């Protein structure tokens, strides 16, 4: 019973949060709502017994990704209201409604496949994190390493794209050479 209560509560909360994200005119509200939604999703993971995943969700998504978006928002100066041309609501909601309906029909249809071969069965005796570790570092090792490299590449890409004046290294310069100018809200280093 608790599971049902928890499920419905978090379901409603998540839906509302995400709805706010996509419909509000204030960028800050959208960001906040998205962050909240992420947290509530992690609740689902905990209900489903995927503890490790839930923790990762909070740390990575809500922590890192939302922080990135927050910095981005500051950079683009979108704390003001968004000016958006409201396209036809009917088409938008209609289309996605239909898509959602189709998917629900597909999922809800009584098509049950027999003989599903389970790749990596969950052993209920071990804790989730331990189990995840065991599978991740043995069966999924290669994807793990590749993901790591990809993250490295993304990191470097992000730095290169967004950095400015990278031909000079602050740490290797003398104190006097560093001239700090204050310009409006910017700090520029020559």
């Amino acid at each position, binding site marked *: 019973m608790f599971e049902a209560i928890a499920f419905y509560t978090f379901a409603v909360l998540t839906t509302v949060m*995400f709805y706010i994200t996509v419909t509000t005119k204030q960028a800050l509200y959208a960001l906040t709502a998205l962050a909240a939604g992420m947290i509530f999703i992690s609740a689902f993971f905990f209900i489903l017994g995927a503890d490790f995943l839930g923790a990762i969700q909070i740390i990575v998504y809500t922590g890192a990704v939302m922080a990135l978006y927050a910095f981005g928002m500051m950079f683009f100066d979108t704390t003001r209201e968004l000016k958006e041309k409201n396209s036809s609501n009917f088409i938008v909601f209609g289309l996605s409604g239909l898509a959602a309906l189709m998917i629900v029909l597909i999922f809800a249809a009584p098509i049950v496949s027999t003989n599903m071969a389970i790749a990596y069965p969950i052993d209920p005796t071990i804790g989730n994190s331990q189990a995840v570790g065991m599978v991740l570092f043995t069966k999924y090792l290669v994807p793990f390493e590749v993901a790591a490299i990809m993250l490295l590449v993304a990191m470097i890409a992000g730095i290169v794209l967004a950095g400015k004046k990278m031909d000079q290294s602050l740490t290797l310069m003398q104190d006097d050479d560093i001239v700090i100018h204050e310009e409006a809200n910017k700090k520029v280093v020559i």
Partner: protein
Amino acid sequence: MMEIGLTHYLVLSTLLFGIGLVGVMRRTNLLMLFFATEILLNSVNIAFAAISHYYNDFAGQMFAFFVIAIAASEVAVGLGLLIVWYKRTGNIDLMTMTSMKG
């Protein structure tokens, strides 16, 4: 209704996916578009985790794990590009990015 089955989670996932689609179609500010994409990815994660739980299979959780990793790196690169574009044109509204017309 009381007994939460796989169907419930899948319906929830679909609902969130639909909301994500709405956001993708509606938003013209590129940053907001990224938010909607995050929603899509999250809804799919729920579905994976739910199936993994109800079929007693780790593959779902592993997949969700990698989706999170991918999403993170995608955000990083995407924001970087967005910054370069903003520096160049000063505008991140979709309606102004029509150089691919025709």
